[in-house]
């Protein structure tokens, strides 16, 4: 058994003329919480989809627990996914089911447990995220932070080995953010899982994670522990950590010369 539960080797993904990833290497050691950081549109979420096998890499490979993801047939892929839990950015709760049924969903689909045991397990998971009392609500009745906690309870319903978080802090108030931050750590350690957190939130995630990969322009530009990165003198890391407007990542999207553009008149 390798020490790394997920390994990304020389991974490229994209379309001819617009490659999103250009040879990415990452490894995720068992038991750790690892962040993938980068600006909006740098393909972080796509990386999660590649790990989950929802997309096939153009080149390179993703290895999950010894198995190459894109070489699996449907059966194998579903087998791998049972080891994964994923928290989607908007929660992606099933709107036609209650909170209880949402958390019970993976258990009912994948196990033959009796209903009484499912009830106990669901309440256990809901209690862990502090929402045992909200079990009969519909997802539309929940606030953003609560919805994400329910989604988290659902993601860990089958005690996965790998938990993936897609922007877990986006759009949350500071209290909910702190709650989620705590949960990521405690769930990871309690389940003995490995967490992959895709985020652009430097402040919260630096307190939380063990290791960080910075992605920009399709490659890993920097990596290290939060402490190492705080001290980094690399211009990109410096700009990102401090949130400066201009730097290696330009403020402007690629455009022709401003003056020429304005003088051209209506000839778009």
């Amino acid at each position, binding site marked *: 058994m390798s020490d790394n539960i997920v390994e990304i080797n020389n991974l490229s993904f994209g379309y001819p003329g617009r490659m999103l990833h250009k040879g990415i290497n990452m490894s995720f050691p068992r038991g750790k919480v690892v962040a993938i950081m980068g600006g909006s549109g740098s393909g972080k979420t796509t990386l999660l989809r590649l790990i989950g096998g*929802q997309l096939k890499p153009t080149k390179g490979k993703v290895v999950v627990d010894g198995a190459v993801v894109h070489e699996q047939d449907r059966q194998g892929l579903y087998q791998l996914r049972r080891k994964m839990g994923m928290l989607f950015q*908007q929660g992606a*709760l099933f709107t036609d089911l209650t909170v209880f049924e949402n958390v019970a*969903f993976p258990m009912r689909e994948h196990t033959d447990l009796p209903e009484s045991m499912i009830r106990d397990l669901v309440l256990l998971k809901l209690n862990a995220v502090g929402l045992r009392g909200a079990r009969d609500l519909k997802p539309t009745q929940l606030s953003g932070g609560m919805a994400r906690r329910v989604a988290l309870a659902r993601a860990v319903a089958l005690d996965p080995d790998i938990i993936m978080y897609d922007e877990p802090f986006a759009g949350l108030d500071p209290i909910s953010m702190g709650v989620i931050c705590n949960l990521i750590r405690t769930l990871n350690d309690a389940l003995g899982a490995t967490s992959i957190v895709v985020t652009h939130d430097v402040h919260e995630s630096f307190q939380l994670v063990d290791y960080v990969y910075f992605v920009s322009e399709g490659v890993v530009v920097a990596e290290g522990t939060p402490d190492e990165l705080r001290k980094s003198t690399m211009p990109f890391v410096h700009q990102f950590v401090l949130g400066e407007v201009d730097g290696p990542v330009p403020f402007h999207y690629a455009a022709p010369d401003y003056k020429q553009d304005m003088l051209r008149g209506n000839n778009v």
Partner: protein
Amino acid sequence: MFNQLAEVLRSLGHRIIDRVWRLGAGARFFIYTLIYSGESFKRIHLTIREIYFTGVLSLIIVLVSAFFVGMVLALQGYNTLQKYGSSEAIGVLVALSLVRELGPVVTALLFAGRAGTAITAEIGLMKATEQLSAMEMMAVSPIARVVAPRFWAGVISMPLLAALFSMVGILGGYLVAVPLIGVDEGAFWSQMQASVDFREDIVNGVIKSTVFGVACTMIALFEGFDAPPTAEGVSRATTRTVVNSSLAVLGLDFVLTSFMISA
């Protein structure tokens, strides 16, 4: 000049290829739905739930429409038939029009508007809010869990709705013809009984509405599944569901009728 012509040809080719591609994608989707149906039959309660949503909740619009269609048929039919002195044949006219044509066709059109749009919008929004993606990541096939139960619910509901449509339509026709206009009640029912054939009329009607059920539900499901995950995408998909289902129903009706009459 040459450039403009090339541009026209190119866009024409693009549209044709796009249509053919969608047709192929739709066919593949249909086959997948059939393959995954076995998995969804194991959880029959999902299909039953969908029969409630697509079938039972469509009852009101279908039955009310049927009642009025039947009444209008009787009025129009009587108006013409009495010129030839055969107003007793009104029962036959109402029953045959409903069982052979109007029952299956109008039910399918109403179904496309009432249930088809709901299916498309629901699946489109499930896709837009990543619910289908989440299901995939939980190693549950959305086709088995979401698509197949809705498909079979539609296929089962449609002939039942069409049968109820015909029944209520005949009732509406009866109320206009007999108590209102004063056609002889015995002639109304006995001529109907003598002229409506079980195999030729009723079974053919059921075959038609089953085919319409497959077409309407499949179009609604595919449009929802294929919709771009945006507000605009879902709204366009919903419109396409109504337009494509209606055209498919009318086109298929012609094909089926020509086979049934020549047979």
